């Protein structure tokens, strides 16, 4: 694969948010008391991109995701998610994006099947949709034949793939992944990125946070956040083929 987009580092400061982008953020700010966790960041993520959001621990990545998913309010700024104002009306887009948290939010005392079924219920899938998505997720996560295994008994790599499966069970247009490869061995990590490429090739926009610099090579657009502020932002012209 090779990126063809030109570098576009230009500041978006002061421009109106772009409703056609998957994500369009202007001046987004979050304070905890006197501490500013996210400090007026701007970026646009066009649809279909793999957007890498890089930064060391504590730089504000998770806080940004929380605001973009409507679970935490912002103190200032604007954010359009899939064209909707997520800060004031998160419920309008909640069905259209997915989220995979740092912790692989699976119920360990439930089986693979039961976890899938639960999240299908949460997103109100019809029986046909569920059957289709279940088959897709089981194939994707390489869990066919292990449907009735307890999630607690899966190794980290499988659990991570199942978490990806549950996060995409409702076929979201945009997927937030918060440090999805933490604690996973390099082979499983590579396998996981293959799955992400597959999702991207189906047109899903990916927003991936990481503090592993080497994972930047998997993304076709990058932003670096440090102490709450963006220090660099742009698109790669080329990136490593896999």
């Amino acid at each position, binding site marked *: 694969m090779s990126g063809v987009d030109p570098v576009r580092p230009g500041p978006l400061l002061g421009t109106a948010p772009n409703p056609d982008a998957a994500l369009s953020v202007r001046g987004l700010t979050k304070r905890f008391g006197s501490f500013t966790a996210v400090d007026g960041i701007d970026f646009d993520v066009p649809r279909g991109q793999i957007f890498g959001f890089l930064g060391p621990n504590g730089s504000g990545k998770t806080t940004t995701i929380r605001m973009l998913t409507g679970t935490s309010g912002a103190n200032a700024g604007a954010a359009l998610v899939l064209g909707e104002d997520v800060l004031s009306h998160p419920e309008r887009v909640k069905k259209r994006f997915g989220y995979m948290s740092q912790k692989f*939010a699976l119920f360990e005392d439930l089986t693979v099947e039961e976890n899938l079924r639960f999240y299908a*219920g949460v997103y109100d899938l019809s029986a046909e949709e569920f059957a289709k998505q279940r088959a897709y997720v089981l194939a994707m996560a390489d869990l066919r034949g292990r449907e009735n295994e307890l999630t607690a008994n899966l190794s980290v790599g499988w659990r991570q793939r199942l978490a990806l499966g549950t996060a995409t069970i409702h076929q979201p247009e945009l997927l937030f992944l918060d440090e999805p490869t933490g604690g996973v061995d390099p082979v499983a990590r590579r396998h996981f990125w293959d799955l992400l490429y597959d999702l991207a090739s189906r047109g899903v926009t990916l927003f991936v946070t990481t503090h592993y610099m080497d994972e930047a090579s998997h993304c076709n657009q990058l932003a670096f956040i440090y102490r709450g502020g963006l220090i660099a932002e742009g698109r790669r012209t080329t990136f490593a083929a896999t």
Partner: protein
Amino acid sequence: MRSLSRIGAVTAKEFIHLLRDRRTLAVVLALPVLQMLLFAYAISFDVKNVATVVIDLDKTPASQAYVSSYESSDFFTVVGTGDDLAAVDGVFDHNQALIAVVVPSGFGRSLAAGEKGSVAVYLDGSEPTAARVGQAFSTALNQVYSQQVTIRWADAQGLDVTAAGQLEPRVRTWYNPEKRSSDYLIPGLMVVIIMVVAVQQTAVSLVREREQGTDEQLAISPMRRWEMMLGKVAPWTLLAFLELAVVTAVGMWFFDLPLRGSIGVLALGAALFVFCSLGLGLVISAVAPSLETANMLGLLLSILPAFILSGFAFPLSSIPGWLQVVSCLFPARFMVTITRGVFLKGAGLAELWPEIAALGAYAVVVIAVAIVLTRRRR
């Protein structure tokens, strides 16, 4: 419709959690019954099976009938008989019995003559509680017996005493005297059990989701807060009702608990009470920083008020005024009034509507507070 799908998903999941967690399941299902049996037996034990020696010096059919009334009573266990007054000393010295009943000769004759027969009851004073209670029951038994004699006498004279009205009910009240304490306690114990289970389980369940990160995952989903709460509360409501049914059944079978009032009012009160308890659990889980704290708070805020501030262990009128005010912060006191009213007094909505209304208001307020508190956490 969508809400229904989401609530159903949560409820189904909660049931699976419960079925997989054998220990909690065992605690939830077996402990209440066990607790009730232990509790009720321990409490009624001091008025049951008191070792008794019967000494019949009269040896007439009348005296034998009197003596057999001790044998057939749950309260006394006749451990020996004798025909010599001197046997009493030996019996007490060797701790064989706490009570000795002596029927003097001439007992049968005075009864036949329509006079009052007299019996001597000796008590072992070294066991004051049992002795005192024994004395009370012995007296009661004598009254029962003398009434039966009266009835028999009246029958023989061709009089209808039951129609006269006053003998039959008194016979019945006195006939099961040893069961009164458990009658009084079981309706209260029910409330304690339901409260402990409901508060404890919900207190823990939201905190666990927070620690697993599933709470965050769900916050991002289209699931609304109240849908999740309702979904979580539903299985426990069902379970609480199951427990109520089991405790009622055990109470009625093993302790002859009467159910005199309206089952509908009991069910309505129980439903509201379960919601109150679950709401209290949700409030705890909203403020508790960790699973341990949630557990602790859950126990503290369920057991203490249910025992002390409900009228279960002490009458509410006997606790200090400020504690009476505090007791209104917990739903148990209203429910104890309802269970006792329905089981023992035959009460219905006409008598119990203030308690029902109080529980309804409490449920609405506490669940609203829980929702506000969980929202504020983010």
